[in-house]
């Protein structure tokens, strides 16, 4: 008998261990649910981790008001299926309360999300928020710990992270501080897709190839929506696209693709020469755009 496990089994076991550790260490936990593929995988792993009990913490969705309608449909269906509580933090409300402004030329609410997120965490006194971020996504995320400490302002201090030895997580914190916990740290984009295929998970339809009204802005293909203001020379065109990540409609770039099934996506991902977030407008502001947002409390 050879006692070995597959790569995905290993990743799954690690993620389930981290999720259970979060639930055990913190009185109040939440799962940050964006409706994207990574949070769909995380939700599934959380379901497995506590089965046959229900997931013992709520899901939090930060609603920018600029969602893909397909993603909201998917979110509501999954919430019902898993029997968890959904808490929605509304960016629209943050703006109406005068705590932020979206006077941005292309209407992106990406940066304001952090304010709404931190307010939601504070309001519900969450000690820890589980997120689906992965280290292979982006160079600042490559520096993340599984248990990532945030000070009472919700800030990340990347120069001074706690050492994280073996799988012994230090969950001690002071009042008002919180943790972000990333069970999928060691997963790659391809691992996520292979797992989705293996577990037969449902995803929002925007991940699969479809014909859509799009606008090309600065080389990035964006879905046309009422939130997008066209500048001179920009035009709406009908394209066959899919999305590799799902965020705010105004900053998530599409890729031209005819991949209609998970298997076709796996083949396409394996052959891709562009990183998954290469089409994310929010990462292009500067060289360290992700680090800057993460320091301020972003996902």
């Amino acid at each position, binding site marked *: 008998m050879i*006692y*070995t*496990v*597959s*790569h995905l*089994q*290993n990743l*799954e*076991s*690690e993620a*389930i*261990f981290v999720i*259970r*550790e979060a*639930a*055990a260490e913190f009185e109040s936990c939440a799962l940050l649910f964006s409706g994207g593929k990574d949070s769909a995988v995380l939700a599934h792993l959380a379901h*497995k*981790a*506590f*089965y*046959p*009990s*229900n997931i013992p913490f709520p899901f939090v969705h930060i609603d920018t008001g600029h969602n893909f309608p397909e993603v909201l449909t998917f979110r509501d269906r999954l919430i019902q299926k898993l029997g968890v509580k959904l808490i929605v933090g509304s960016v629209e409300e943050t703006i109406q309360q005068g705590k932020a402004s979206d006077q941005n030329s292309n209407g992106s609410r990406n940066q304001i999300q952090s304010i709404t997120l931190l307010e939601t965490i504070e309001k519900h006194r969450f000690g820890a928020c589980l997120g689906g971020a992965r*280290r*292979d996504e*982006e*160079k*600042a995320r*490559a*520096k993340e*710990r599984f248990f990532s400490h945030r000070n009472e302002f919700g800030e990340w201090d*990347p*120069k001074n*992270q*706690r*050492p*994280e*030895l*073996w*799988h*012994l*997580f*230090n969950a*001690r*914190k*002071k009042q008002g501080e919180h943790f972000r916990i990333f069970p999928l*740290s*060691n997963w*790659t984009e391809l691992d996520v897709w292979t797992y989705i295929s293996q577990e037969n998970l449902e995803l929002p339809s925007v991940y699969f190839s479809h014909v859509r009204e799009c606008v090309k802005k600065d080389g990035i293909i964006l879905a046309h929506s009422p939130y997008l203001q066209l500048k001179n020379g920009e035009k709406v065109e009908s394209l066959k696209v899919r999305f590799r990540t799902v965020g705010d409609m105004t900053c998530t770039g599409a890729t031209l693709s005819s991949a209609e099934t998970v298997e076709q996506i796996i083949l396409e991902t394996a052959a*891709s*020469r*562009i*990183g998954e977030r*290469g089409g994310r407008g929010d990462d292009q502001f500067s*060289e*360290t755009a992700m*680090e*800057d947002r993460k320091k301020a409390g972003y996902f």
Partner: protein
Amino acid sequence: MEKELLAFATAGSVDDGKSTLIGRLLYDTKALFDDQLIHAEKASRRKGLSFTDLALITDGLRAEREQGITIDVAYRYFSTPKRKFIIADTPGHIQYTRNMVTGASTVNLALILIDARNGVVEQTRRHALISSLLKVPHLLVCINKMDLVDWKEKVYEKIVQEFNEFSARLGISDIQYVPICALEGDNVVESSSRLSWYKGPTLLWILENLHISSDYNLIDCRFPVQYVIRPQTQENHDYRGYAGRIGSGVFKPGDKVVALPAGFSSTITAIDSYKTQLKEAFPPLSVVIRLEDDLDISRGDMLVRPNNLPEIGQDLDLMICWFSTKPLVSRGKYWLKHTTKQVKCIVKELLYKININTLHRIEDNLTIQMNDIARIRIRTSQPVFWDPYSRSKTTGSVIFIDEASNETVAAGMIL
């Protein structure tokens, strides 16, 4: 056949070229995306460099890019047709040794870089010592920047000899050496004509072909209870399962087990993995174990086999790596995290610390400061169930947490 995974950490002194080597490995194995490369090219030009600085691919933090150093460990994922790899790119700067230890604690191989011009320096010795204390099974020593010593075999041979003399006293069983030039790619993926006197394999060949033996102890059954699952719903009214990750050994339904610390015995009725029941469970699987009897078992307890108990006690001898800028306080109290259990401990005795360069013990005027490696004796507030680190990493490792700041101040390996 599924590809095997090799996790490795890069180590070595600051400026030995770790980030450049990783950039080179990723570039030459075509593991970089076009947009990552374009970013690195643009950033290099902004910095006024005449070449593309591949280190800018892994040094992701603003402060790292400004100073051209690595502060914290960055994890990279790539695969070749033969294997999958996880790289922990760790900092060389002594100030950030704690991050090197973080990266090295979960890998199969430590890749130690040496600048051919400088030879074996204190950080090389420190990282080799840490790798041996952490029981990293393989060491790969890369003598880098061979271009700056005119590709001379003599320089390489001298460094190999110097390192060998040092490592012989560390008890590391598997060490390999390779001369490289990371900046230009010599012997990284392609073998180099400029190093034709070297007859061995390239760096990537070694990484792809190294025999990885299972790191797991399959003999001593240890199951630290992480979480108790009790649905208390209509359809699962009596379900009571103990969730956790198998620490070591193989568990099967029907096995007699003892729950520590209470000492009650029971029998495993089922091992659940979601909706399936397993015939056996072994590391690193996360499972739920159900028992025949309703016992008082909670997080921090441990299921073991009656004829193979771990050590149970409150007095521990450990080797520690101290991380905090505040020195270790003799008679000081700390939180200790061991498996899923958290207890308090008091430092009873500082036995010695190790002189990194000579490996001699320092026993006089002992103060244990940041980056020191020392042997200490502690007493815990409650009994812990442990094995020596050399036998089981899961039950042999601890972290120390400062009561006031909540910082992780040390890693400990039980002797």
